[in-house]
């Protein structure tokens, strides 16, 4: 609640700043500072007793680990009315050297979470920019998009299976270089702590896991007995490359590649037969993206269309640093799997957009312990969305998902329906490509 007052105070402060500004010829006066609140809510239903969202999160994966650092709450989405996160953002130029961005989310329960808080250099020469703080990683095209600019009401299954609902973000630094060429060529390097990943590259809460093992096995197992190395310093490095030829004013294509390494990923496994073990090792992620947009020739978005697709492949090589059977210490455990999505959107009438999306998780997935290899089963998600943009500040969306999910307890084919509103009050930040 306290945080809410802080937020209101910020809102009040920023509007008075805006009011105080005259219409002088300061070029960025109107852009600075910008404050907005994004309201998002939906009516949701599925034909699996409200378990639809949880089933998707539990889809078969080589990267399931228990005792994660932030144990994820399941089934956030309930049948009926849902108030999604309310997002507060504030951004603008700090001075001629930096600009800054802050975004925070208030959950329906009133919990306040700092999602992004970064500063970015604006005065480095030679096409260089540095971002520091907490930011969304550039590992994928969709990863950098805020939920209010998504074309669908929910996270796609590909991202959900590898990066979780919120994607990859972290505390650290990002360096980008934009080449002085007619075509767009950008190289980026990110170094972050890598301590908050939900799936690939996740770490475990050693204390919590030690307690669980103690409760299960009987003799006391301490945090130290797990033999995990210290999570010290930045663990995640991401390299990105983006290229876009100049196709004129009516269309654009962007291609991208990314590679990431998480140096110290950890997992806790509970197998049938009472086997418990903790593994540690490194994880690599490779990504490829392509986005094509044909810009609207008519007004209010009519005639514009776009296709975006991304593929990721993750591979983790870990070793058992603790095992309920001491003979198995050092057991190599590897997880690998791919995930992909493709979405297409078309503005078929002024202010109306229709979108189709298909996503898959567990592509070519394998989980191996020593000589034993288990194949990960493929899960799929097909979505269709109809969005009405009342203005650029507000939209209503009706979305239908058909999911074919393979989980722990067999497979399930089911439907989800979302009726969503998404409004932005205040400054409306300019949209990235």
């Amino acid at each position: 609640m306290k945080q809410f007052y802080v937020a209101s105070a910020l809102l009040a402060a920023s509007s008075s700043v805006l009011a105080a500004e005259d219409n002088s010829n300061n070029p960025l006066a109107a852009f600075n500072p910008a404050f907005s609140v994004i309201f998002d809510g939906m009516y949701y239903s599925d034909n699996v007793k409200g378990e639809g969202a949880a089933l998707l999160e539990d889809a078969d994966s080589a990267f399931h680990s228990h005792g994660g650092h932030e144990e994820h709450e399941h089934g956030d989405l309930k049948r009926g009315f849902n108030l999604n996160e309310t997002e507060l953002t504030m951004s603008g130029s700090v001075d001629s050297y930096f600009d800054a961005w802050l975004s925070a989310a208030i959950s329906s329960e009133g919990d306040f979470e700092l999602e992004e808080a970064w500063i970015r250099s604006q005065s480095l020469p030679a096409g260089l920019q540095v971002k520091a703080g907490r930011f969304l990683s550039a590992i994928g095209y969709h990863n950098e998009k805020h939920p209010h600019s998504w074309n669908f009401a929910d996270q796609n299954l590909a991202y959900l299976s590898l990066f979780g609902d919120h994607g990859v973000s972290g505390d650290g630094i990002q360096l980008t270089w934009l080449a002085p060429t007619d075509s767009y060529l950008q190289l980026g390097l990110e170094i972050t702590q890598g301590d908050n990943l939900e799936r690939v590259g996740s770490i475990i809460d050693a204390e919590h896991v030690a307690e669980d093992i103690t409760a299960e096995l009987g003799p006391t197992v301490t945090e130290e007995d797990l033999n995990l190395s210290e999570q010290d310093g930045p663990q995640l490095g991401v390299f990105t490359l983006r290229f876009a030829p100049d196709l004129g004013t009516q269309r654009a294509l962007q291609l991208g590649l990314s590679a990431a390494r998480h140096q110290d990923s950890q997992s806790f496994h509970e197998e049938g037969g009472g086997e418990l073990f903790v593994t540690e090792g490194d994880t690599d992620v490779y990504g490829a993206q392509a986005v094509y947009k044909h810009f609207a020739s008519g007004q209010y978005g009519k005639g514009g269309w776009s296709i975006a697709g991304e593929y990721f492949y993750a591979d983790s090589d870990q070793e058992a640093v603790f095992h309920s059977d001491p003979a198995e210490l050092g057991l190599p455990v590897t997880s690998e799997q791919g995930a992909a999505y493709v979405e297409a959107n078309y503005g078929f009438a002024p202010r109306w957009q229709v979108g189709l999306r298909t996503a898959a998780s567990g592509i070519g997935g394998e989980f191996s312990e020593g000589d034993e290899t288990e194949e990960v089963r493929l899960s799929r998600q097909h979505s269709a969305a109809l969005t009405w943009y009342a203005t650029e500040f507000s939209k209503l969306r009706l979305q239908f998902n058909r999911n074919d999910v393979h989980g722990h307890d067999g497979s399930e084919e089911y439907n989800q329906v979302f009726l969503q509103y998404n409004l932005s009050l205040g400054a409306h930040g300019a949209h990235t490509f």
Partner: protein
Amino acid sequence: MNTRFERICRPAQGLCLLLLMAVATPSSAQLRILACETEWGQLATEIGGDLVQVKNASAPGQDAHHIQARPSLLAQVRRADMVLCTGAELETGWLPVLLNRGSNPAVRQAPGLFLAAEQVDRLEIPVTLDRADGDVHAMGNPHVHLDPHRVITISRQLAERFAQLDPDNADAYRQQQQAWQTAFEAQISDWEAQAASLKGLNVITYHRTWSYLLDWLGMNRVDELEPKPGLPPTPGHLATLVRKADEQQVGLILYRPINGDDAASWLAKRTAACAVELPFSPGEEGTNTLASLYSTVIQRLSTAREQCLQETT
């Protein structure tokens, strides 16, 4: 590089010299300009001549409110000496992205950033700001390029800015601007004479796109087809316009090609007014230069007015 050229060049020296000049002279010395809209790209070309190299971010006739900050524009910003836009919030949906992610400190503020509409006084500066009133720009109506007098003011500022960025050619920019202004001013009186019959005419416009043109030619806007700026026409709003058009003897309904002719034709059929499609930016059909834009607009308006009078009588 040189030695290789010499080796290849020896057999046909004259030709090679020409080729070398063609390769070597442009770009390096020229001011690289990224113009948000073609009206400013055209003005920069007309003032800067061969001393500038202009790239337009949008196509002629595209809606400048809704251009995407596509990656190739970031590449243009990265190498630009000047970003030349309308400003006055017209490009708030995409220009900040270009400036913030273009990795080019030189164009984030003046002198590298030139915002044309902010060099002149603007019409329709709102007294109150409420989003419920639609897409209203706090700094007033940004579509200033349809008033040639304001364009002259802007051209002078622009030439000064060129001179500041490229001091070696400062005199050349000023001279070119002077020459351009002299020729342009001579035409303004012609256009004003041609448009004399339009003075006092009541019109309905699709969007507030034409305010400066109407202000210049002494025409009156009665209402817009859009119920609120940025919202498409609704049947209810159009119905009220039928009455309004007759009451206030509206002569013409003005729209741009991107607006589509549905709403304008619908209203024209039900009133004594006639719909007329007008080019908005240089580069649209029949309008290669700023001067031809004004003459085309005035010619279409006058023709439409005459035909309309004949039809109704």
